[in-house]
């Protein structure tokens, strides 16, 4: 009892949680986290200097550890780290086996097999050099870093809230995605339940028959659930339009034209040299028509949004940090000689003050963004 009295805030907190009280803190808009992570991702992709690369990854990890919630997806960063490690490992193994970069200090040599000319003259094995390994590791590290940035966004932004905050025209797609996200754990639960039930009939048998005996009840269950869900959504007004009719055909046509404009514009801009004069206007017209069409389609749907996530100063700050990181990295890549790290010959990479600043900017949301509430999902 005395211990409880000594720390009354513990009691109050437990009590408040029980009554559904609101805890202090503010969840940052999920799309703000995505904006920040993509900015950091751009910087990581440009960071050919391994020191900057490591600093940026550390900054991103720092932010996740500081601002993630207790939700299940908030623990997913470890998974992305594993994936990043796998990417680097695979690249290194290929570098050792297939080679490609054979100059420099030889670490050890593998027996060499030259494939015939129809296999593009690939040589297997051969000398393995320090320079080759370092170059590959740094190169793969950039991709790995990008993966970690995406993982950070996943850990910080509630995927369901992100989907809730889409333009009204995407509402139905977003609903489908939210359901898909929730169905996965249900399916796992269903499989476990049926497998357990199989033990009641003498255990799961090997081979196709055993597989069928698990898959059939699981699928039946899944279909039952989706029908029940569909009926529930239908009777709660999902898909209502203001006019009571489907999509206007003129609106549909506008959207198709917009999509064609965007596709061809992008293709011409990137693929056809000198097409900029007509590709850029085409792209812009396509984007404008698309925005207009989506807006109108959203208007036609009668949906509104309950307690939309606010977009305020913290969101601008988080996105701003991401954009600033990307901008600094672009500037560094074109001006700072220390960014150009060469493995041939192998030298210790240099670190410049602007690089430190870039990583610091990326890490800022970890300190400046508001903390999420303790019970946030």
């Amino acid at each position, binding site marked *: 009892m005395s211990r409880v009295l000594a720390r009354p805030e513990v009691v109050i907190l437990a009590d408040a949680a029980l009554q559904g009280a609101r805890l202090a803190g503010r969840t940052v808009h999920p799309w703000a986290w995505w904006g920040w992570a993509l900015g950091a991702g751009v910087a990581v992709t440009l960071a050919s200097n391994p020191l900057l690369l490591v600093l940026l990854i550390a900054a991103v990890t720092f932010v996740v550890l500081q601002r993630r919630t207790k939700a299940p997806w908030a623990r997913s960063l470890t998974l992305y780290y594993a994936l990043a490690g796998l990417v680097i490992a695979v690249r290194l193994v290929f570098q050792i086996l297939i080679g490609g970069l054979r100059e420099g200090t030889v670490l050890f040599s593998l027996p060499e097999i030259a494939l015939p000319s129809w296999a593009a003259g690939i040589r297997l094995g051969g000398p393995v050099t320090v320079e080759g390994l370092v170059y590959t590791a740094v190169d793969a590290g950039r991709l790995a870093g990008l993966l970690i940035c995406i993982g950070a966004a996943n850990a910080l932004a509630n995927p369901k809230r992100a989907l809730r905050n889409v333009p009204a025209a995407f509402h139905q797609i977003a609903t489908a995605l939210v359901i898909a996200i929730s169905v996965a754990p249900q399916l796992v639960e269903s499989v476990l*339940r049926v497998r357990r039930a199989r*033990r009641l009939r003498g255990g799961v048998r090997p081979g196709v028959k055993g597989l069928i005996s698990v898959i059939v009840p699981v699928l039946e269950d899944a279909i039952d659930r989706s029908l029940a869900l569909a009926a529930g959504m239908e009777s*709660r007004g999902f898909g209502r339009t203001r006019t009571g009719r489907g999509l206007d055909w003129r609106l549909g046509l506008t959207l198709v034209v917009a999509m064609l404009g965007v596709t061809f514009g992008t293709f011409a801009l990137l693929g056809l040299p000198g097409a900029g004069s007509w590709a850029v206007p085409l792209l812009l017209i396509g984007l404008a028509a698309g925005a207009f069409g989506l807006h109108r389609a959203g208007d036609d749907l009668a949906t*509104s949004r309950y307690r939309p996530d606010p977009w305020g100063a913290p969101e601008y700050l988080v996105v701003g940090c991401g954009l600033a990181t990307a901008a600094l990295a672009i500037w560094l890549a074109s001006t700072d000689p220390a960014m150009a790290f060469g493995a041939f010959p192998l030298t210790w990479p240099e670190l410049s003050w602007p690089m430190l600043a870039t990583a610091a900017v990326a890490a800022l949301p970890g300190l400046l963004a508001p903390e999420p509430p303790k*019970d946030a999902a």
Partner: protein
Amino acid sequence: MIDFDDVSFSYDSAEAAAASPVLREVNLHIDEGDLTLVVGRTGTGKSTLLGAINGLVPHFTGGLLSGEVRVAGRSTRTNRPRDLADVVGFVAQNPMQSFVTDRVEDELAYGMEQLGLSPTAMRKRVEETLDLMGIAGLRRRPLADLSGGQQQRVAIAAVLAAQPRVVVLDEPTSALDPTAAQDVLGAVTTLVHEVGLTVVLAEHRLERVMQVADQVAWLPGDGSVVLGPTAEVLARCDVVPPLAALADRLGWRQVPGSVRDARRRVQREHITVADAPQRRERPASEPVATMTGLGVRYGDVVAVDRVDLVLHPGTVVGLMGRNGAGKSSLMWAMQGAVPSSGDLLVAGSDPRSLPANQVGRLVTLVPQSAGDLLYLPTVAAECAQADEESGVPAGTTAATLVRLGVAVPPDRHPRDLSEGQRLALVLAIQLATEPRVLLLDEPTRGLDYAMKAQLGAIVRRLADEGTCVVISTHDVEFAAAATERTIIMADAEIVADGATRTVLTSSPAFSPQMAKVFHPRPLLSPAEVVRLPVAGRGELA
């Protein structure tokens, strides 16, 4: 408020429709503010009738509907269910399956978002609805973490938030323990009385809801619907709740609407009944199963906490308790399918140490979702497969199925069977190994009174042949009629264990209606009510 004009409906094509429609020329009118109870045996079209109210039948299910259904003056012919969402709220049988979002607050708002209400109006209504259903404390909780009763209340609240004028509930209490069921029904009654909502509610366990109903719609099974005052319709319908059975035994023409009414009439008419029959004395027998310190844990959650239990052959044991009290876990642990600690012996062996295909000879379990066990296209194929799995001569399972006395067409797909038929099939499959202990997890869900009586007779016969049958159930009346020993679990422990008569009649939550009517005589079922000749001026109705 709700009008059915000459409505006929069938799921099949036109010519089959003429032969046996689900609904045939139904005319009915339900007034605003009424609570209508829809009753009928399994498969008589209760769900179809409910679905027709908001247009799910036929817009969503398919089929052919003639005539017209109007709700608040709007016809389902021209309005799809989604267009009626602001008038009719529909709560399906299993709330968890129809939740669209994953948090209580978001789920409440979902319907209003679809209707396009302004954010300020939504904020206000969500708060009002949270208070109305008494779930304000749950607002930030994930839906998956709620108990069955809480889920059901959230599902009703989610529908109410859109402020419909009619609410349709399909078996809202079928998965709930008696206390949680009371809770949900209490909330529904409040809505009818305070908010003036029109409620249409289908339910199998009439004893739970009949006292709150204004009228009863009975589906006799030939496609017609009989709508009338509760007492009159129940007196002649084929769905017989305990109070109707009592009225029948005492020769009352009107079925009392509640335990209170029955008690008063018994007192007024000075009816005296015979004492409860004496318990049949069984010769002392060797226990068939013993558990010592049996425990089940899932991570940090203790589902069963060091339970000691001895089961005897030839007995029917009821296992009761709140949702999540550990009943299912105890059963699965007895079967050996979930890891457990402590000692477990069934007929001399430990099921946990045996390979899966030999456990069946000792103990077998019919799980709550019995359909999980079935995967073949026909009943006959399932039976043949069961013979092979159990290593018994071909035809044994099919013969067991016949012996159970439930007609199950062998060429039918198991999913097309009724709840009762499917239960019988799974029961036959699980009995093929002739187990010493039979465990039934919540078998009465979706069964009507006649099927429950049949199930009761089946387990009685199995027990007479020497099997020990353990039934976990929320159904007080079934447990009272079918079991002789009752174990009540709470908080992962056994809190009461003894003769059904003593355990059930001494607990207010689990007391059967007959015990309440004839208190202090501990009567369990209407079958035990024997009227004694009246001493004095008692009159025969």
